[in-house]
């Protein structure tokens, strides 16, 4: 019984500590960029972002069908239902080009992020 209560207390303390460490730090200078999907194409198809900064991509899907924002280079994949907006957080990125696709319409939905 005592060992169990110690365990429980230890776990509770661990979670409080974890919450403090793991939670994202809200920062005013997070950049957000809107990316629109329409007719299974991204607009803009080339997104320029500053290197070395965390970027919030707001992916707005104006098609009625779902789309999956996918990028192996960025290590991100996110399903965005038709008519919805999904958030994809990327970076800080090294300067370079990072390709992404809409996995459900890979022939047309292609784009790249250029970090400078």
């Amino acid at each position, binding site marked *: 019984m005592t*060992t*169990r209560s*110690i*365990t429980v207390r*230890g*776990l509770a303390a*661990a979670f409080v500590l*974890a919450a403090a*460490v*793991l*939670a*994202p*730090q809200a920062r005013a200078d997070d950049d957000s960029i809107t990316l629109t999907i329409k007719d299974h194409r991204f607009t803009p198809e080339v997104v320029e972002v500053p290197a070395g900064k*965390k970027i919030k991509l707001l992916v707005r899907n104006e098609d009625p069908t*779902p789309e*999956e924002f996918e990028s*192996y280079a960025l*290590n*991100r*994949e*996110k*399903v965005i239902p038709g008519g919805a907006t*999904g*958030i*994809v*957080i*990327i*970076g800080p990125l090294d300067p370079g080009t990072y390709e992404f696709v809409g*996995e*459900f319409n*890979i022939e047309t939905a292609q784009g790249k992020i250029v970090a400078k």
Partner: protein
Amino acid sequence: MLASAIVVFREVLEAALIVGIIMAATVGLPRRNFWVLAGIFGGLAGSILVAGFADAIAAAASGMGQEFLNATVLFVAVAVLGWSIVWMRRHGRALSRRAKDVGNGVAAGGVPAYMLAVVIGLSVLREGAEAVLFLYGIAAGQGASASLMLLGGATGIAAGIAVGYLIYRGLVRVAARHLFGVTSWLLAFLAAGMASQGAAMLVAAGTLPPIVATAWDTSALLSERNMLGQVLHTLIGYDSHPALVQVLFYVATLGAIVVMMRLADNRRVLPSAGAVAAVILASLAVPATVHAENKVYSPIVHEGEFAIEARGDAAVDRGDTTKKTQTQIYEVEYGVTDRWQTAIFGELRKDAGGPLRYNATAWENILQLFEQGDAWVDSGLYFEYKRADAKDAPDEVEGKLLLEKQLGQTVNTVNFIFEQQVGSHAEEDTEFGYALRTKYRWRPYLEPAIEAYGDIGEISETKPVDEQKHRLGPVIVGLIPVARSVNFYYELGWLFGLTQASPDHSIKWLAELEFHF
């Protein structure tokens, strides 16, 4: 006349094949012939009824009544067949003994024989309805040609039955010695084929997505329209251009039946060998340990992703049988939201010296805490409730803290594992373990990694290092696209034991099919 003979022959042949196989599988079952005949006549009566209401059925369910009826008939037949196979497996020995000793022990077989009548009835119903409709259409026509075509139909029926009978004789003779083994496999393939056809009906009705409309196309090589193709279609469910969902139904049905067959075999052994029970009891008495973990969980979940996963872990120490353990897990996962993934899995386990047996069923959940990349390290929580299959074994609750950090091209993942037994015979203390992985993102299809797994023991009183289990080794993982929105994911690794209590070498493997809807 020839044309009508062939049309009817095709329909009758399918039913006759099924009846033939079932009869071969049930040689020696008391009152078998009675139940088979009951099935055939029940099915025929049903066919005539269905044919009579053909128009009404076709119009039902917005024009999809025919498909739904067929699918229902097929799936009921699959369920009954599966049940029958397991029953025969469990009582197979008693049955074959009785076959040699005719007139002995009549009482036992009543219930399954009745179920076989249901399977036969359903098969005859499905094929028969089409034959009856066809013949009725001819009979309703006029003139001398109609009677000629009816004669053709009768020829077709006779030929179909004759072929079915020949197959039955052949099966009984060829497979007499290994009858139960062979025929239960035949029935398993038959059931899998029916499940695949049932899925095809639901795809046609628009209720099931085909996932991939044509998984492959071998119609140029072997069409179901030729004789061999049709026989294979009936026997093992051959389809020259199946939808992927049909293939999945096929594999799932076959897999489920095979697992049940294995379990039935094991159960048959259990009571005769009290030693097995003693081994199980002994393994319960051994201090519990965090069971061999073999997967590192990422905190990231994907909405709308549906996956079927098989994974396992096997110790391959040569000579030392005390460490020859094995775990297999079969799992179905679904990403309900972009923060929550839920899964159900079944676990098979082989303890040292024991047989591979069904160990537990579990419900697994992953909660992703924040948007990926938002915090310095991505985090998630994992909760699992594992229900032990054996009555006197404790259940388990497992919690994990999942952490992941991308550094350059590497992704580093840490799982802290807490496990608590609950229920009867439960250990009081919480056990602690870990799973780690560092992988290098080289190419999507091949990412080299190093994984480590450990089992420290009770939190309040950790074990001496010698008794702890620590394993470490190279692993490759990768993702290969199979079709639009379908990916194959694998992990394959070799783990070295680092302490006395760990197996010196073990293999871990994982194969997963992922679907996005």
